[in-house]
């Protein structure tokens, strides 16, 4: 029996149910005739609807919109907002997602009137500052990646991957080479195979070796002249750096292939190593991970793509150029794969990212990588006594544990994740990467302080003890959340995607 259900000897509940903890939907709050706003009297002559519209296009019933007051609406959303878990609340160690704190300074800068009130259709001469921002951000990213040019257009990491693979395809077409395959290790980000497939390639998977890295002999065997590219996540989803990257690049290039780097984990080595120097031909970055722009419901993503010389002609249009006439938009790109996003990408995210880069400076950015790696390794050290570490290779910015030591008592990764909510933490990524059975993928990011890490380790170690001494406690978690354990299989098999009015509920 959970704490919430405990009753005293008199039959009275210690924790009476509070209606707003399980708030009704706005539709359920609706009362006929209730209003949030009263419109002023109409100042012009009114015409009857019948005179304005033929019967065939007139609604016979209303759309069923809720009729609620202002306070109903405000309370509804405030109640929902109190269920949020955000990086502003506590550690959010969702591996691979890099849920780091978003500095308030970025928010100040993006709200400057020149940025906030400009329109993408304004004459270029009136938005030179905005174009300079594109140009400056591109220069910064060129410097950090060691590549030749950058498109800021892609609206998310996955779109960046897709754009990167379309450019690979365009470059190979230009060479007159119709290659069929893309190689992707099992430790890559999950979106890579989809990006390659959407660009028209067949995906071949490469298995990691016992160190969690790519096996060079496997690569040598798989890398033929039919292979367009290798898509490598660096460091990979195990948090392991591909320490043979130069040899990997050599093998791929020796067969005329291109090396794609998924740079979503760039925060692990930014300012330390440049992908261009590692032999990478094309790389996407996630501004919403490495460069602290908000994401995960807090804001849209942004996934710029950087390329080496060979791929520059194929970059999406437009690019921003700097010349004697100031900053201009370059649409005259005959080999370009075309436009990939309306206007110029997620402008607000580009402003925030540049604010962060300039605010941190070169040395500050290198410090990000150091702290991201230090924090992940501090957690690794703190947890390796309690949880199984499937790969003992040194890890960078994230670390993957499993539930192997807990399964003997019947406690699984899912149970551990649910129990962690009772300790006030967002659970880590679970059951990913898929090449690790029962994976718990933890990424604290560089914005966690030692005290945050210590309390997370303490919580995880307590759960390991509970798993041994009281497994049913962990299996029954969570107890303190607005809803208890959900039936995830039922939700996926028979999803209820919309509210139905009560009288139609049975239909």
């Amino acid at each position, binding site marked *: 029996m959970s704490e919430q259900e405990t009753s005293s000897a008199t039959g009275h509940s210690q924790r009476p149910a509070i209606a707003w903890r399980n708030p009704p939907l706005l539709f359920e709050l609706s009362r006929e005739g209730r209003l949030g706003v009263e419109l002023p009297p109409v100042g012009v002559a009114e015409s009857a609807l019948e005179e304005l519209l033929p019967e065939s296009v007139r609604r016979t019933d209303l759309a069923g919109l809720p009729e609620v007051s202002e306070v109903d609406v405000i309370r509804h959303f405030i109640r929902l907002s109190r269920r949020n878990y955000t990086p502003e609340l506590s550690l959010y160690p969702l591996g691979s997602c890099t849920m780091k704190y978003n500095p308030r300074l970025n928010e100040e800068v993006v709200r400057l009137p020149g940025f906030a009130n400009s329109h993408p259709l304004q004459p270029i001469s009136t938005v030179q500052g905005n174009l300079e921002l594109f140009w400056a951000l591109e220069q910064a990213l060129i410097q950090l990646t060691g590549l030749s040019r950058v498109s800021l257009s892609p609206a998310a990491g996955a779109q960046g991957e897709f754009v990167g693979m379309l450019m690979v395809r365009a470059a190979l077409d230009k060479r007159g080479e119709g290659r069929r395959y893309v190689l992707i290790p099992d430790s890559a980000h999950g979106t890579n195979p989809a990006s390659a497939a959407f660009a028209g390639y067949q995906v071949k998977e490469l298995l990691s070796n016992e160190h969690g890295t790519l096996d060079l002999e496997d690569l040598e065997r798989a890398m033929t002249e039919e292979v367009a590219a290798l898509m490598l996540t660096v460091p990979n989803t195990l948090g392991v750096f591909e320490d043979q990257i130069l040899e990997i690049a050599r093998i791929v290039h020796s067969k005329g292939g291109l090396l794609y780097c998924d740079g979503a984990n760039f925060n692990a080595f930014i300012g330390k190593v440049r992908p261009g120097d590692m032999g990478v031909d094309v790389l996407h970055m996630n501004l919403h991970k490495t460069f602290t722009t908000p994401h995960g419901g807090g804001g849209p993503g942004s996934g710029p793509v950087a390329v080496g010389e060979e791929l520059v002609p194929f970059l999406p249009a437009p690019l921003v150029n700097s010349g004697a006439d100031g900053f201009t938009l370059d649409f005259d790109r005959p080999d370009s794969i075309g436009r990939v996003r309306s206007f110029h990408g997620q402008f607000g995210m580009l402003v925030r990212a540049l604010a962060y880069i300039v605010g941190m400076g070169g040395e500050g950015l290198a410090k990000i990588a150091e702290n991201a790696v230090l924090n992940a390794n501090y957690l690794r050290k703190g947890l390796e006594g309690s949880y199984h570490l499937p790969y003992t290779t040194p890890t960078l910015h994230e670390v993957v544990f499993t539930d192997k030591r807990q399964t003997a008592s019947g406690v699984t990764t899912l149970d551990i994740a649910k129990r962690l909510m009772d300790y006030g933490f967002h659970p880590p990524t*679970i*059951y*990913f990467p898929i090449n690790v059975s029962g994976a718990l993928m933890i990424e604290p990011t560089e914005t966690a302080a030692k005290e945050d890490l210590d309390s997370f380790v303490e919580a995880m170690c307590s759960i390991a003890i509970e798993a041994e001494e009281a497994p049913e406690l962990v299996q029954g978690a969570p107890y303190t959340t607005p809803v208890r354990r959900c039936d995830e*299989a039922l939700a*996926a*098999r028979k999803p209820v995607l919309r509210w139905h009015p009560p009288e139609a509920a049975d239909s």
Partner: protein
Amino acid sequence: MYLDEYLYSKEHEWVHVEGETCVLGVTDFAQHQLGDVVFVELPEVGQTFEADDEIGSIESVKAVAELYTPVAGEVVETNEAVVDDPEVLNSDPHNNGWLIKMKIDAGADLSGLMSADQYKEFIDGEDA
């Protein structure tokens, strides 16, 4: 559990050869690793595949797993009951949870597949 008349692959598919056709499904070990299956995507009848080609996918609450065919051939029937009710894959993977029937290619090579005993040994190794 692991029937002697079936053959097994390292990707955890089982194959039941009946003359020139075979029935293909995933093993109990595989469904257990996947957890509750929520979505099954199968190939179309009439599609032809080489051995080790990806032919569909199985989505569970934990992950999406690719489905491979260890046998070269043409799809002659698919199990729509599993598509409608993926739970069958968890409850009865070796019988009612079958996925596709294939007409085996004349030159198909099944020698790389495992017997039930070999497969049991193989998964004991995977579990450790």
